[in-house]
């Protein structure tokens, strides 16, 4: 990085600034994880268990190939869900409705997929598009209500979750869009052509949808950081009035990002539908939308951070049930997850604030140093360092 100022010390300063930035970026998660481990250990100890044996069991069980495949497969929907949440988060929108969106989307895709059979990839593409559209439609209601009526999306999406569940319930009945299979009700099975490919790993395959998840993550990163649209989106998230004044139509962006978030949410159910269950039934996984919120918080909306978050979550899921097998209460995993999220958000805030004041202090010091070296300039009086914002 080069700076405009001719002063040689400045380059060094800039370098140290980058280094600080990196250190600070890692500091938050590290701080959080250490805190979470400490607190979880205390919980273990308080309930008379040996925390280290538990961690040992988890680490050991997690490293087997079947665990790893399981973890990856489980992390894919988590990741997509986190992505959907993060799109909203980047502009201060809180899409709690990912849960309803992905379920409605997966249900619609399953219903259509069971009814028609297009050849080859066409079918898969169609189903994915349908899912994204339905997800977007459902979140769009919240977006529309926010932009036209000013209703908080937090509330509307909560309501829409419940309504989505009822809609699915209405159609998921024998004689409507579902068939009866023992005690279960589900949509017709998808034809062979809608089965997504998978990687033949050992002993179970890894879902091919992981590729879509990676692509979606890359697209998210690129869209947010490298496009004009992404800049507008981030601008709204950083400061709504400033974005408005800069020419961004905040309402349009709200609607857009709500739609995008819903479309991403539409993908959440797809790995399961196209790779595992091939139908949408009463036992279709629910609640991934809420997990997505936790993972987006954990990964600070960063595509890589969220990937780690999703894997960590899946790891805890996997090894938690092993703990149960070994005589621990698997519910400890819920405590760990809660503690991790809480620690992460607090740690991140502490580090952010520390970083900000550090930077302001540095800027002040550097400017003071600069003005000392350029002391010839007598009218130099704006160098009063600003420390408090």
């Amino acid at each position, binding site marked *: 990085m080069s700076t405009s*100022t001719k002063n040689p010390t400045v380059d060094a300063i800039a370098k140290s600034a980058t280094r600080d930035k990196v250190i600070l970026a890692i500091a938050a998660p590290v701080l959080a994880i250490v805190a979470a481990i400490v607190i979880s250990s205390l919980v273990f100890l308080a309930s008379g268990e040996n925390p280290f044996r538990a961690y040992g069991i988890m680490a050991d069980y997690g490293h087997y190939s079947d665990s790893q495949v399981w973890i990856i497969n489980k992390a894919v929907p988590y990741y997509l869900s986190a992505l959907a949440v993060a799109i909203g988060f980047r502009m201060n929108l809180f899409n709690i409705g990912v849960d309803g969106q992905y379920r409605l989307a997966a249900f619609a895709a399953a219903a259509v997929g069971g009814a028609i059979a297009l050849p080859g990839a066409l079918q898969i593409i169609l189903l994915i598009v349908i899912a994204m559209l339905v997800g977007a439609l459902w979140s769009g209601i919240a977006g529309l209500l926010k932009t036209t009526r000013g209703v908080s999306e937090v509330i509307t999406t909560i309501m829409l979750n419940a309504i989505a569940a009822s809609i699915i319930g209405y159609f998921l009945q024998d004689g409507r869009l579902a068939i009866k299979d023992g005690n279960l009700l589900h949509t017709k099975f998808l034809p062979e052509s809608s089965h997504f490919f998978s990687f033949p790993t050992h002993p179970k395959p890894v879902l091919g949808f992981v590729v879509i998840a990676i692509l979606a993550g890359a697209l998210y990163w690129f869209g947010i950081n490298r496009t004009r649209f*992404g800049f507008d989106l981030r601008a709204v998230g950083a*400061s709504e009035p400033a974005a*408005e*004044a800069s020419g961004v139509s905040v309402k349009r962006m709200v609607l857009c990002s709500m739609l995008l978030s819903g479309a991403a949410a539409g993908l959440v159910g797809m790995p399961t539908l196209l790779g595992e269950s091939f139908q949408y039934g009463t036992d279709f996984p629910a609640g991934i939308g809420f997990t997505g919120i936790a993972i987006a918080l954990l990964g600070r909306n960063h595509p890589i951070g969220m990937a780690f978050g999703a894997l960590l979550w899946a790891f805890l899921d996997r090894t938690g049930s092993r703990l149960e097998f070994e005589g621990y209460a698997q519910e400890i995993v819920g405590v760990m997850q809660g503690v991790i999220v809480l620690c992460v958000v607090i740690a991140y805030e502490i580090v952010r604030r520390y970083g*900000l004041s550090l*930077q302001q202090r540095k*800027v002040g010091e550097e400017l003071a140093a600069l003005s000392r070296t350029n002391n010839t300039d007598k009218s130099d009086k*704006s160098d009063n360092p*600003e420390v408090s914002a």
Partner: protein
Amino acid sequence: MANHDIHLTVRRGTVHALCGENGAGKSTLMKILYGMQKPDEGTIALGGEQVTLHTPGDAIARGIGMVHQHFMLADNLTVLENTVLGAEKLHGIGAGARAKIKELSDAYGLNIRPDVLVEDLGVADRQRVEILKVLYRGARTLILDEPTAVLVPQEVDALFDNLRELKSEGLTVIFISHKLGEVLSVADDITVIRRGTTVASVEPSGTTPKQLAELMVGSELPSPETRESTVTDEEMLRVSDVHLSATDSDGVVRTVLDGISFTIHKGEVLGVAGVEGNGQAELVEAVMGTRRPDHGTITLDGTDLSGASTRARREGGIGYIPEDRHRHGLLLEAPLWENRILGHVTERPNSKGKLLDIPGARKDTERIVAQYDVRTPGIEVTASSLSGGNQQKLIVGREMSHHPKLLIAAHPTRGVDVGAQAQIWEQIREARREGLAVLLISADLDELIGLSDTLRVMYRGRLVADADPAVITPEELGSAMTGAARGHLSAAEEGASEDGTPGDGASHDAGEQEGDEQ
């Protein structure tokens, strides 16, 4: 460090003025006196007794009251609630308090209505509520931080009458202002602060404003005077018959702008004077397109922009220096180079097609930093770590970099130190020479008179008067701002007596016959 080695002695029963340039540390010093910030070292003695003030509560308990530079009122609470807040022990929060407020209001002629919501009050009323709050707590020492910044000269006089009355009752007043004339007229003692330290204590009797100014900045004060006229007769912006109404939270529709018409030519600076809240901010928003007028047209350089989006307007050549840079001008937690993109994301060098051109934006940010003398160690630091003046220079640089046809400058030098102020003025003047049209809104009447080629006065959402900056005085302008004078104000006597209808002043194109300054 905001303050160091400050020595300040205030005598009981006097008005003590504190002067210093923007960011000199006056407010910081007062916040220390008021217990809001803690000094790293040093002592405060009150009536000879050493005190430590940890919180505003401590200060209040010792009879110190403060009226802040920015109003400290809760809009959705009534005047009564705002007044008794934190001092409920004195007279309760009911009838007792109401009686006490009435008593104080009558005693000092404050005209307080205790049961109105503060959000329904005007600026001067709010200020009186602030003073009432202090008196209600029985303060013996009043700190007033730039109480006159938002007042017109007539209101300032009234305020000073109030201060003299307080002084005669034995109260001590510490008074902060940039306006040296005011300071000399009301103060018994003056302390000057520069770069966070006291540089002098002077008596008003033996001092001239010029001497005081030199003490403040350490050099001569720059003036906003415009030297030669560059006004052309090519029309750049034409606003005709704009009307804007707004619905507030209670569902009441209010007219905010009414019958606004004016023209700005290439190379012309049109200044709009007015007490804050009379519609200037909304006028700016209407021209920027962040608010949609009910009717009326806005034409820029022959193109009708009335229905265009803000972005289209910016692309069409409108540059914007917003009134509140923290809210409207910057992404405070983003690095400088991202702030450089803000507002011009669709234009080169910030983007190519739909994609951002990050290297281009960075490079250009470095150019702006160098060219506009933005003092920063680099372009990676966040905007919030820059001082106000440097933030403003960055904004000015950014807006100028896209060669606007029209610059909307709302309070371009507010909160900016003198050096930066001079630079900003110079940049506006330079661009004007090259044919830039400027819509200037400012509360600083000297700046307004000095920079403008044409002046208009805004009152209750209308352009009620116009004036020739070459001859107008701040006092005359101020009286027009209170609505006392209308029509054309070029000669003082006529201006005051002329009773042109409001629409009259608004509809005729003052700019056209005033290409003849200086």
